[in-house]
């Protein structure tokens, strides 16, 4: 907006500027207004709340959240949850996106639907389904028993295995979609050119495919990390209080103990963590992503 305004200023007298808003400026307006109302204002209230309690200005919330080993452990849990979910989704999602982009057109539509479909199912439904599947008499135990991997049913629900299994299941589509959309725009002749120059499949992947699909990877990582680090429903249902996360602390602070100062402090810490990780990953991938763009 500022740049547009400045450019207009150069060419037109300032008085007529408001009437001369150009198309991009007008198109960004609804989104901007919405984001101010729905995001910026609540965040400001949250930040304000984090610095005051009933008695006025206070840093009690931050002292607790950043000083108490219990809460530091919870921050660490959330980070771990976000990181493992992101890495797991990336390791499974990248090859899947590659295969998807190279599949015959008709199969691609089908596979795409299969990846997209889970997104239309409520997370609660999906997670309950997983919980049922992982019960002692669930299908997963039945399978492992019959394949001879285990001798008696294992405890699966309320373990970290269940947690990450469920998290990756929920977030995988969000990793695949951005990578796939970049991957399918990758000119297959670039990999042909690499091969004709003597590069084997590994070199071609590392020096051509990966750098050129980096923008998709960064988008996927940012998306999955920032949402999974704040996940509430899935950890709650699949592992519960045994693995407390920042979201659960916030929910408890606001809903149970009504300590808004604590909840807001935790929320601000989470926001800072997520924003930092997203920007760092974008920064490190920036050279590749900038060059990877077409044209």
């Amino acid at each position: 907006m500022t740049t547009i305004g400045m450019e207009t200023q150069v060419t037109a007298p300032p008085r007529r500027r408001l009437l001369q808003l150009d198309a991009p400026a007008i198109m960004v307006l609804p989104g901007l207004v919405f984001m101010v109302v729905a995001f910026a204002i609540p965040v400001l209230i949250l930040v304000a709340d984090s610095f005051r309690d009933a008695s006025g200005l206070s840093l009690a919330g931050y002292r607790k959240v950043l000083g108490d080993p219990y809460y530091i452990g919870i921050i660490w849990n959330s980070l771990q949850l976000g990181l493992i979910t992101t890495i797991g989704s990336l390791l499974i999602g990248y090859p899947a996106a590659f295969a998807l982009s190279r599949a015959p057109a008709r199969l691609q539509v089908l596979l795409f639907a299969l990846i997209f479909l889970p997104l239309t199912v409520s997370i609660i439904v999906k997670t309950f389904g997983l919980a049922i599947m992982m019960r002692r008499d669930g299908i997963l135990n039945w399978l492992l028993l019959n394949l001879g991997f285990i001798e008696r049913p294992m405890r699966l629900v309320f373990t970290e295995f269940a947690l990450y299994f469920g998290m990756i299941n929920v977030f995988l589509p969000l990793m695949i979609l951005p990578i796939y959309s970049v991957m399918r725009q990758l000119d297959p002749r670039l990999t042909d050119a690499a091969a004709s120059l003597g590069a084997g499949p590994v070199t071609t992947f590392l020096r051509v495919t990966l750098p050129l699909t980096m923008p998709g990877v960064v988008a996927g990582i940012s998306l999955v990390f920032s949402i999974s680090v704040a996940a509430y429903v899935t950890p709650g249902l699949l592992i519960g209080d045994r693995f407390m996360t920042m979201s659960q602390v916030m929910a408890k602070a606001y809903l149970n103990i009504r300590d808004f100062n604590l909840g807001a402090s935790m929320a601000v810490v989470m926001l800072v963590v997520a924003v930092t990780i997203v920007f760092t990953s974008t920064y490190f991938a920036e050279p590749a992503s900038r060059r990877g763009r077409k044209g």
Partner: protein
Amino acid sequence: MNVVAREAAHARATPRSDRYLDVAAVTKRFGAATVLKDLDISVARSEFISLLGPSGCGKTTLLRLIAGLMKPDGGRIAIGGNDLTQVPAHKRNIGVVFQNYALFPHLSVEQNVAFGLEAQRTLKAEIGGRVQNALALVRMQAFAERRISALSGGQQQRVAVARALVVKPSLLLLDEPFSALDRKLRETMQIELRHLLRDLEITSIFVTHDQDEALVMSDRIAVMNEGRIEQLGTPDEVYSSPASLHVLEFVGQSTRIGGTASASGQGGDVGIETPIGQIRASMRRNSGPTGKVVVGIRPECIALGERPGADFNEITAELADIVFFGSKTALHFKPPAMEDRIQVEVARLPSGVAPGAALKLHWPIAETMVYPTP
């Protein structure tokens, strides 16, 4: 262009018997469609061959098979006696210049050219010098640091050539490398590339559907149609003695007249009854087809005026159009009995000739080509 033509003529005069690249009975199918059918082609060492043919006839497919970017459904591909049919692309050492260059957008000009050397683990100390040499060959040293997106089409084309040549390929394949360039630049690049490849003695296969480009650049031309090679010969052979009606139609201009051939007429000639009268063709040139045939004549073989002797065909036709080309003038005649026009080329338009005039035309029976109607 003259220089190239003369040099090409010289190259043709030296006999080449070696089969450097040997493609034997190669077949390629996509689903139910057979795109290449039992195709054979041999290329001599340091020869420049053009693959010429209409869109969709399988030129790119043949190149991809030779490069190893695709596996054939049958047949054999060998270079210098080594069977490469089962060798993957990255172990074939065959350079490819792709239709839209396929330069790596995330690398600079220099890095693009160095890519092949690095992939083949060339000594670091050697890479810099070889990249500079390759860029010098295509006169792109000044652009070494540039990003690909900041280059013009012609410059990208040069980088693509440098990138393919720097690894010293045993064969260079070029898929319509000039199709994105304007005509002037195209003609310059044709000559430049031809000189470069001849100096380096690189065996090359060059795909184009521009017949002029093929005639100008090639030692030999392979004319393709529907997945087959219909004729493989020098530009002169392909132009003057087309092996089939398709080759006649595809390479150069020609007038084609449908008719019925009767068994040989006087003196070993064949007579063809056509809507514009009887046309005679020499049997020495044609294999003596009978029944429904098509007669073909090149425009520059037809002259205005009465025939000078018995060895010529003569007709009278009304002049419909005059098309001025600068160095030559094309005359189009439209006999009432014929659907197509008769095309004639003259160096100078005789004075007093105007559309509507009925003129006599003649051409040698030795230059009259006859093909069975397909």
